[in-house]
């Protein structure tokens, strides 16, 4: 029994699961990522963390990162650096509403990549970021 538990443990650490529609969306992103790079295997939390925490010359010419508004600790509430809007925590472990509706996920990925990176994210980047957020 202990052996089984140990075998399951790494999987549970890896990431929380997505709901069925979101998993289908992730699978679509995987196909897109594979098309762009045939050596692609799966999305990666560590790469996602780097995308999420690294600073870039944002839309207003000021260096910002996703954490500028969402904070480094995704289990806490965030605050928009320009509008002061309070942002609910992104971590699914404390906010069950996050990463559940494809339409909203697509909308915010597009908007926020544009605001921070001044371009849309690739399928690889989007998947990596979603894995990172979902691991919290």
């Amino acid at each position: 029994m202990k052996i089984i538990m140990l075998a399951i443990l790494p999987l549970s650490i890896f990431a929380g699961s997505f709901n069925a529609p979101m998993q289908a969306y992730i699978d679509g992103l995987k196909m897109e990522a594979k098309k762009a790079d045939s050596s692609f295997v799966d999305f990666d939390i560590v790469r996602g963390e780097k995308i999420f925490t690294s600073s870039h010359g944002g839309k207003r010419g000021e260096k910002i990162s996703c954490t500028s508004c969402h904070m480094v600790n995704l289990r806490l509430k965030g605050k928009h650096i320009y509008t002061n809007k309070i942002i609910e925590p992104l971590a699914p472990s404390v906010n069950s509403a996050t990463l559940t509706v494809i339409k909203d996920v697509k909308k915010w990925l597009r908007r926020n990549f544009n605001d921070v990176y001044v371009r849309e994210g690739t399928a690889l980047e989007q998947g990596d970021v979603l894995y990172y957020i979902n691991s919290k």
Partner: protein
Amino acid sequence: MKKIVPFSMLMATLVFGEVVKPVDNTLYLKECGSCHFAFSPGLLPKRFWVKMMAKLDNHFGTDASLDSKDTQTLLSYMVKNSGDKVLITKIHSQRLIIYAE
């Protein structure tokens, strides 16, 4: 006094044409009101809403873009309920339009 209030409301209605209608659209409340106060479309004229919705990807400095279906649905609601007939919004909106441009 009791008579003055309804009378002034009547005068306001005659002078300004319409009373600004409160927001009664679920999508509008969700998409606009999740980031800021959902301003009633009746507070600004049609040309403001048309211009603003055409560049949602740079909405006062942040990307507030929506998919084309929702953009169209909201624009129709805004135009239908815009404040073109309200004299006071015509005057007020000039500065906002200049700012938004």
